[in-house]
């Protein structure tokens, strides 16, 4: 333990010597593409939404370990003024934390003390109508500029030193239901975003903008237009124009392949697939795009012609896995909302394996190509997983140390789906039915926001943190919770795992065994991805609960 602490202090001393990792020849250039590319070399910082381009949400800081984790104490709390759900993951760069507060306020704080340098409060247009909460999940940063995607579909560049807006770009029309809730991804000199609005009949897209000007560099529509491959999967009518396929979580990037990977949301109308006959590409897919041009390299579809709103927007987790012949497998791990855990070859999208991680009855298996063998339930009977899925936006984690994949799951949770015709009207919900309660008469598990009382009980579903061995698809261990969970997961090189739950508990588990090592009650639902950072040789762990951000560290 002492050795680990010393090594961190040594590293920090090196950082001080060079003023900051962003300093080149004495000039502070802020966050560079090269720094994000090599984020593992500066674990005291958290430079992009999932910690690094591989989106493993894994910190190599190891000062906090299984011997001292029980000593963790609260260092500071930041109380948001917003009462919306706190889903953001902060960035930390050279001792400064950059945080978004719902819906679209940016705050810069002293990461060690929690004191505020500045706040930039952007007021979104009254036309904005995000389906599922006025939330924001975080920022991108390049140089000294922060980038925020807003719920009224603007991309705003902000000076990280002053909080002053530098430029903005109107990406799409919020009056038609377009919104943005994700943290932008920075690749080279571009800012990449995607649009939400899958419940309003939008036509989704991913687009890249020049970081210095906001000029659009490329755009990839997640529904192919006439003449493009895949257009025929929308039934030949005009369903493609309003088919959703939105994007609302941050993608990943493989610099060797120069591919950026993004998960795509549900087709619309959500629950009436008869209005959109065909596979509905690229809804419920992962797409691999050339990071310079936005051209599609490959895609893999998890749920063709989706009946259930099984968005496939989950974080693409990239793992270089050692093969037995000494080579390295370039894998993508994916815990999907449809209840299956997938392993793909991220070079070409080839399906390697897929297994259910929760009780599933909408499909009995996946075929050799990963396509589901579907088993639709009779009318009025519950489908598992239910509409919120086996998992959802909650960031998973992969630990290179344990070689396990970790995700938050809803177990034994179903919905009764009812389809009905829907007519598209711009800016109006375009749903085509509704998910019903699998337990008629009983309270429904809240989809997004939990109150103080659980009155839906274990009969409606329970929560679990599940550790999966990617080599076999087997569950290695699980940590059961009474209520379902919406928390992301963080692992560290000390083989610790941090996660919260809707009950307001924040946990430290042994990443190898699932044993509970420490917990605190934070008094509100935890719905963001925990992260870790270091300042002056000290490691900190961060979680948001309710309307506040909590920062923990070891005693002085």
């Amino acid at each position: 333990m002492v050795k680990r602490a010393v090594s961190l202090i040594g590293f920090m001393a090196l950082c001080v010597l060079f003023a900051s990792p962003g300093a080149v020849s004495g000039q502070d250039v802020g966050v560079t593409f090269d720094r994000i590319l090599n984020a593992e070399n500066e674990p005291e910082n958290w430079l992009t939404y999932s910690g690094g381009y591989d989106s493993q949400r894994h910190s190599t800081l190891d000062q906090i370990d299984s011997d001292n984790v029980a000593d963790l104490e609260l260092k500071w709390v930041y109380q948001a003024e917003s009462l919306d759900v706190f889903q953001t993951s902060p960035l930390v760069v050279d001792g400064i934390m950059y945080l978004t507060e719902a819906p679209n306020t940016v705050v810069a704080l002293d990461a060690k003390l929690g004191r505020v340098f500045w706040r930039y409060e952007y007021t979104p247009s009254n036309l904005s109508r995000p389906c599922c909460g006025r939330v924001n999940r975080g920022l991108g940063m390049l140089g000294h500029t922060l980038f925020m995607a807003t719920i009224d579909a603007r991309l705003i560049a902000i000076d990280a030193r002053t909080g002053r807006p530098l430029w903005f770009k109107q990406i799409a029309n919020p009056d038609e239901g377009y919104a943005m809730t994700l943290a932008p991804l920075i690749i080279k000199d571009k800012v990449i975003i995607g649009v939400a609005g899958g419940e309003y009949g939008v036509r989704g897209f991913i687009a890249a903008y020049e970081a210095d000007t906001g000029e659009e560099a490329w755009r990839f529509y997640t529904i192919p237009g006439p003449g493009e491959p895949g257009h025929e999967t929308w039934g030949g009518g005009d369903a493609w124009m309003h088919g959703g396929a939105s994007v609302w979580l941050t993608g990943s990037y493989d610099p060797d392949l120069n591919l950026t990977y993004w998960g795509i949301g549900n087709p619309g109308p959500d629950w009436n697939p008869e209005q959109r006959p065909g596979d509905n590409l690229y809804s419920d897919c992962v797409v691999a795009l050339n990071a310079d041009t936005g051209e599609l390299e490959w895609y893999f579809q998890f749920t063709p012609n989706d009946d259930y709103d099984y968005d496939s927007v989950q974080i693409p987790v990239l793992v270089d896995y050692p093969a037995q012949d000494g080579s390295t497998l370039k894998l993508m791990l994916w815990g999907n909302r449809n209840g299956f855990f997938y392993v793909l070859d991220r070079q070409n999208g080839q399906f390697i394996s897929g297994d259910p991680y929760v009780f599933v009855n909408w499909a009995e298996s996946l075929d050799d190509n990963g396509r589901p063998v579907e088993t639709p339930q009779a009318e009025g009977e519950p489908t598992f997983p239910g509409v919120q899925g086996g998992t959802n936006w909650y960031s998973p984690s992969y630990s290179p140390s344990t070689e396990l994949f970790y995700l938050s799951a809803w177990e034994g949770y179903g919905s009764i789906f009812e389809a009905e015709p829907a007519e598209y009207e711009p800016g109006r919900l375009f749903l085509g039915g509704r998910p019903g309660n699998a337990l008629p008469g009983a309270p429904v598990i809240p989809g997004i926001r939990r109150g103080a009382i659980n009155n839906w009980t274990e009969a409606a579903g329970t929560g679990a943190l599940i550790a999966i061995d990617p080599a076999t698809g087997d569950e290695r261990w699980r940590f059961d919770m009474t209520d379902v969970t919406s928390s992301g997961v963080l692992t560290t090189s000390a083989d610790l795992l941090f996660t919260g739950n809707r009950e307001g508990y924040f946990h430290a588990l042994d990443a190898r065994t699932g044993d509970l090592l420490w917990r605190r009650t934070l008094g509100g639902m935890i719905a963001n991805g925990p992260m870790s950072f270091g300042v002056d040789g000290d490691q900190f762990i961060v979680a948001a609960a309710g309307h506040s951000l909590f920062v923990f560290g070891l005693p002085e």
Partner: protein
Amino acid sequence: MTQGTCFIAMRTLCIVTTILFLTGLPNPALAQGDHVGQYAQADIEYGLRLYRTTCAVCHAESGAGVPGTDISSATPRAQTDFELVALIRNGIEGTAMPPGEYADSELTALVAYVRTMAELDASNVQLGDASRGESLVMGKGDCTSCHRLGNAGALGMAPELTAIAASRTAGALQAALLDPNQAMIPINRPVQAVLSDGTVVSGRRMNEDTYTVQLIDDAGQLRSLDKTTLREFTVVEESPMPSYAETLTTQEIADVMSYLLTLRGVEGLD
């Protein structure tokens, strides 16, 4: 052999295991409740009563009171039940159909009645008498020996009846009277905890998380228990409530239902 082949081989084994796992699991939700699209007789009958007092003045007993509209045969502005609920709640702008404030149980009943009124022989419907029902609840039914009602009755043993009509449909109330086991919703399942010293605590859950449970015990005491220290913690799936199918007549059941459907708590407060 590359690790990739190894992945595929292991997966085959995994699928076999998974299928066994899936087929062996009981489905906790399958045994619960009615299918979508079916209407409980009690909701239809309650809907008839509501219809007569709130709708019939315009739509007439037959449903054809508004010229050009016969809601007993079709509701073209509301194809689905969901849309019919919205229509009753919001009214129709520019027409004489006003918006109305209804409890969910009333909306359920009105929809059930409108959808079935063409086939229903209203003369055969046995409408209860609420004042007789009140006497039965307090007397022969002995409901307050377990249920709280206003300032009377037990606190911790069963759901409070004071505002029961605000949260239960007529169908659900009738099911609870006739088949309490089937009708009991999960949060009302009684729990029993054996403390570390052997003390047995019985009561009704108010809230629960991974480590603790909050309940009101049979004596009406609020208790918060650390589950990790309990010897046993049991959720009882069998309702302690007796069925009244044999002990009350059909007319008496209708009377009790009529009374229960008046219980909406303190007037003016939600």
